């Protein structure tokens, strides 16, 4: 087999003389090559290509029987392929595998007819490669380094694919850690550290969201009575203990979807989504009062507190706003304080800032 470079005038300088390669050398140089004779029959194949054909007889078979031209689609004679800048060739028994390649004409052996314009009619030499689908090809056919010429960048490509996956995995892990840390930070930013209830910010947020959604909810404002005395006479540790106990009682007596927040030293706000009447709020408030007024033991002594409670309902307002509801619940609470503590006051349905509060005065249990 030989390939001839364009010669100058007369004597060919070294390096431009026809190169003659043995089949073995060609196989090493181009493990994915294919040689066709002038009739388009396969007369040689590189070892990697033979591996892809997995024992199917190739030599002597027509090119079109084993391979399919994908681009160019149609040629009148196979040797026209030598004029194509880039070939795309499918392997019939491996649907989905598309090789890319280049075809060059081979000179005819001495004595055979020669085509003077285009090199000889000694058939074609095709050099093929996997192109971008090389990862799948290597995996599907169990190829090894030995199946590629050392000049081929396939292994570099595999290296890059694996290194890129490793980097992506690291980034994904890091993202997971950051998201976890962010969730913890957000939870901390919403939480009152002493009681584990929501803090003022979280309550404001929940209240704004509830108003924006436009669904009915009840709002309860609760202020402890006699808490200052506990703090002053029994110390801050006792005060903290009482606040934690109150938080536990509030959580016990409300539903899991209710939002309970500590919004000041001994002030609590509870948001009751879905509530559009006072009856359930009053019965919950009554249970809360009953439990709050039971003595809370601390280091062998009993802490005694009570609470004043004010409540309002979003459904009372034509245009509810968070400030308006909080303000009204607060005024209802102070009405409870003025009328003797340990009580619940509900805002009158009249829904006017100047409306008199109608106290549902209840005796503490």
């Amino acid at each position, binding site marked *: 087999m030989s390939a001839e470079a364009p010669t100058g005038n007369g004597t060919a300088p070294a390096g431009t003389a026809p190169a003659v390669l043995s089949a073995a050398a060609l196989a090493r140089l181009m493990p994915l090559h294919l040689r066709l004779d002038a009739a388009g029959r396969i007369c040689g194949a590189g070892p990697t290509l033979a591996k892809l054909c997995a024992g199917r007889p190739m030599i002597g078979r027509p090119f079109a029987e084993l391979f399919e031209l994908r681009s160019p689609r149609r040629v009148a004679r196979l040797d026209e392929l030598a004029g194509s800048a880039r070939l795309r060739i499918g392997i019939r028994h491996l649907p989905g595998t598309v090789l890319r390649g280049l075809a060059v004409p081979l000179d005819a052996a001495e004595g055979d007819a020669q085509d003077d314009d285009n090199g000889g009619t000694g058939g074609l030499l095709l050099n093929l490669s996997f192109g971008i689908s090389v*990862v799948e090809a290597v995996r599907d056919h169990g190829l090894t380094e030995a199946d590629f010429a050392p000049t081929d960048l396939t292994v570099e490509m595999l290296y890059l694919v694996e290194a890129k996956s490793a980097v992506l995995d*690291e*980034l994904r892990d890091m993202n997971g850690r950051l998201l976890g840390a962010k969730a913890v930070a957000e939870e901390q930013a919403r939480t009152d550290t002493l009681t584990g209830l929501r803090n003022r910010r979280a309550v404001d947020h929940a209240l704004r969201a509830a108003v924006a959604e436009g669904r009915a909810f009840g709002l309860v404002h609760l202020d402890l009575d006699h808490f200052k005395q506990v703090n002053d006479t029994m110390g801050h540790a006792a005060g903290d203990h009482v606040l934690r106990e109150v938080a536990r009682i509030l959580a016990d007596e409300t539903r899991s979807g209710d939002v309970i927040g500590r919004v000041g030293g001994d002030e609590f706000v509870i948001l009751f989504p879905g509530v559009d009447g006072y009856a359930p709020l009053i019965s919950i408030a009554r249970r809360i009062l009953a439990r709050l007024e039971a003595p809370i033991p601390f280091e062998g002594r009993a802490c005694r507190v009570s609470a004043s409670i004010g409540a309002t309902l979003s459904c009372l307002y034509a245009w509810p706003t968070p400030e308006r509801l909080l303000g009204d619940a607060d005024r209802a609470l102070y009405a409870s304080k003025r009328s003797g503590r340990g009580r619940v006051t509900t805002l009158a349905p009249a829904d006017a800032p100047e409306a008199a509060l109608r106290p549902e005065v209840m005796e503490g249990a």
Partner: protein
Amino acid sequence: MHGLVNRSIQSFLRDTYGAAFWARVAEAAGLPEDGFETMQRYDDALTDRVINIAAGLLDRHAPPMLEDLGTYLVSDPRRERLRRLLRLGGAGYVDFLHSLEDLPERARLALPDLDLPQLCLNEPEPGRFMLACRAAHPGFQHVLVGMLRAMADDYGALVVIDTAGRADGADRISIDLLDQSYTRGKQFELAAGMAAGL
């Protein structure tokens, strides 16, 4: 030092000596509990501090500990990735040794800011190799010794590897290849486990 390097040290200490040990090292070095982030850069002094604290707590010298780190990076089943990347260097151990010169460039393809030491391989006599490691920071050569030994195991090659002092500003490692195919080595497939579409 790149976070990836620091994170490798952290994984080695945690996987080898336990989470409690790592927590002690992290605390003593003034690191957060989670330790290093992979894609961050850190002051080199912090890396040295972590290594010295760990070696101190273990009552070991740093170099043999760093050799263990190198072995761990290649042979720990949880870190199959690096072994695969190194095995892509060549079909046999000698090919692999020659591919080390390309290693920093290859690594930079994936992580442009990862500065691995410059490696240069010589074969002063057949079967006897000398690897020069020119690192911006000392200590890499010990990690490399551990890695090279573990890779020899992986390829099934019988070698004697040791540090060989410094010359011309490079830390040198000598590799005596006694038998390139002493055992069959571990199995390696070029594209094993690569999911489609990677």
